[in-house]
């Protein structure tokens, strides 16, 4: 390799930590483990419904990849999500373990996954830093990423919208648990 290294900067530990999503604290992970998944289902369905109502063009951007099955596996939660991007009636389901034979599996902390959806994090950057692990049909991943990035989804607001009078407090609570989107590279780290 070259004897004269050109000037370059490498992400130091602190810098990477400042820009990258945190993980759900272990105590919360443990607390979640025994909870049944069933109550999650109406919230997920309502969130998806809200997202589709607010962003009707999202599946158009998926093009030929609409209909593919995406597994989203938060590595710091004892559950996973299955997104079936059927053009007319897409579905999202909470599961304990993802089924085999998915088109795509995306693994990462729940903060990284939510940041990916609401645009707070750059998907490529998360992948480069190994905060996201992606397997399967890469073209479908890229299409999904681009579709949701363009849709400008506010996942927390749209997800909490179905909770009626509880929406505002739930939103505040969730936001306090989640990292702030990194739009300013000099922003203080969340921890």
């Amino acid at each position, binding site marked *: 390799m070259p004897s004269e290294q050109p*000037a370059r900067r490498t992400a130091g530990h602190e810098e990477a930590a400042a820009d990258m999503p945190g993980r759900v604290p272990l105590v919360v992970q443990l607390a979640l483990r025994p909870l049944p998944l069933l109550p999650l289902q109406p919230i997920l369905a309502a969130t998806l419904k809200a997202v589709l109502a607010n962003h009707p063009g999202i599946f158009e951007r998926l093009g030929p990849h609409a209909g593919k099955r995406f597994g989203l596996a938060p590595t710091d939660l004892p559950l996973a999500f299955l997104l079936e991007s059927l053009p007319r009636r897409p579905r999202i389901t909470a599961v304990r373990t993802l089924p085999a034979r998915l088109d795509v599996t995306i693994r990462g902390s729940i903060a990284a996954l939510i940041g990916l959806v609401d645009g707070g994090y750059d998907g490529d*950057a998360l992948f480069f830093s190994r905060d996201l692990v992606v397997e399967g049909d890469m073209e479908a991943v890229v299409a999904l990423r681009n579709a949701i990035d363009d849709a400008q989804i506010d996942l927390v607001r749209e997800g909490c919208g179905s909770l009626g009078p509880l929406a505002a407090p739930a939103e505040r609570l969730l936001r306090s648990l989640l990292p702030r989107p*990194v739009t300013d590279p000099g922003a203080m780290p969340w921890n």
Partner: protein
Amino acid sequence: MELICPAGTPAALRAAVDAGADAVYCGFRDETNARNFPGLNFSRAEMAEGVAYAHARGAKVLVAINTFPRAGQLGLWHGAVDDAVAAGADALILADVGLIAYAAECHPAQRLHVSVQAAAANPDAIAFYVEAFGVKRVVLPRVLSVPEIAAITRAAACETEVFVFGGLCVMAEGRCSLSSHATGQSPNMHGVCSPASHVSYRDDGNTLVSRLGDFTINKFAKGEPAAYPTLCKGRFRTGIGAGYIFEEPVSLDAAEMLPGLKKAGVTALKIEGRQRGRAYIASVVASFRAALAALEAGRPITGAGLTAMTEGQTTTVGAYRKTWR
């Protein structure tokens, strides 16, 4: 110096304009542009809306139609030129000589820029495009040093634009068939390099293996920053040594070169990354806006601080400093 920012989607265009881009470049959702990625780019209606959004805020829109039209099927590319003009594009960024000739003849009032894909790397090549077609600006390849950029800009009969941040082509752009050799899909013909359709990753918990087509491009140890399997940034073996024989998976960050580029007479600074998300666009544009403000005010320019956004989590000033070679 103008700041030229990428947009792969209407949301990204709005993010770039809001973050202070002087101009945004984007393309139609087909193989007429060199970022023909799934789910990316603009429909005709989105392009017109994007132009309106940008113009209302004092920003320009440059439409990239910078692949090389397929022989016998020129209509798709001619249509893109006509539609970009109709949408109110401030300039077209073109690479193919035949297509530049078409645009110059059919739309003589339209401002034309020579894409980096045309690999105009010296004053004679630039003069060829200026004399033949009256182009107003050329985007210089990422293979030149700052003194070379200065010399070319002095001798050039039109404006020059250079990349300051983002993905780094180590091969002369527009003259590389590595991707089509391995996948059948090339930047010049299909608008993709090392396309996602041919990419696979395998992560066994310790090593992440990236492959393109039938070839292993890289293996990453646990915790090591990963990279997209772009052919020229993979690890390979030779009889002399193994490793990144072409280039490490680094990104260009020429923030510290801004004073030199200004002195060189460069008109516009370009940020790569139409395939990247809104978060990237907003961060990078804001950072360079701040760097340019510092430059204008005579303050020192600190690094862009964008390392975490970059491939391999590492940045380089690339060929702008000659030791790169």
